[in-house]
């Protein structure tokens, strides 16, 4: 009985899938989430903050 409940809860738990590579993201692994599109990006596909260029800033901060 308990085992079937466990199975049910596992099935109920929503799988997290990277919107870029389609990989399932396991528990405990970081991912980034957009609050605008709701898209999830796994840590392999998330390239950090810079896409090109060698500087990033708001002047004087």
């Amino acid at each position, binding site marked *: 009985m308990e085992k079937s409940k466990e199975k049910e809860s596992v099935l109920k738990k929503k799988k997290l899938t990277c919107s870029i590579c389609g990989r399932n993201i396991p528990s405990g692994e970081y*991912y980034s*989430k957009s609050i*605008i599109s709701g898209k999830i990006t796994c840590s392999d596909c998330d390239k950090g903050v*810079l896409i090109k*260029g*060698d*500087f*990033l800033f708001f*002047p004087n901060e």
Partner: protein
Amino acid sequence: MFIFRRLSENDIDLKFKTGYNAFDEINPDGRLKAYLNDDIVRGGEYCTYILIEEIDTENLIILGLLRYKFIDKEQFLTELASYELEKEIEKNLVQQLNKTEYSIIYLSRIGVEKENQDMNIGQIISNFFEFLVKRKHERTFIYVKVIDKYKDFITPTYDFIAKNDDKKWGRYYLASKFLEFDE
């Protein structure tokens, strides 16, 4: 030898210039003193890291610099109130910040020394920053501010959530992302 480490009192007279006037305005004499004054080391708010090439103990080149600060939620929400942002985005953002506890980090700047640009050092520093954040294993909200001209430098994993206008620098944007993990 290459070293990535926190800025310290010993670095006060080391020079760092990117060649971008707006970036370098913060330390017109090129010394790291200005960065040190704003750092936690001297009672400021920022954590500053430098990437160094050590030719020998007397000869150091600062290849790049990173600085960021932790901000509490109320401080961030107060700042957010000064921005122009869509109601739906504001609602989602505030809901998310209230639903779960996040460390909030303002990534203030990443810069590369002028003689060493175009070698992906900016990306190395950006990746190092991600590492610093992730090694804490905390849910984290990261935001940056970027002037209009350099908006395209931001990766698509960051949301452009708000905009504002500065008297001197014109239109600028606030971009952010939530770093999450499931237990």
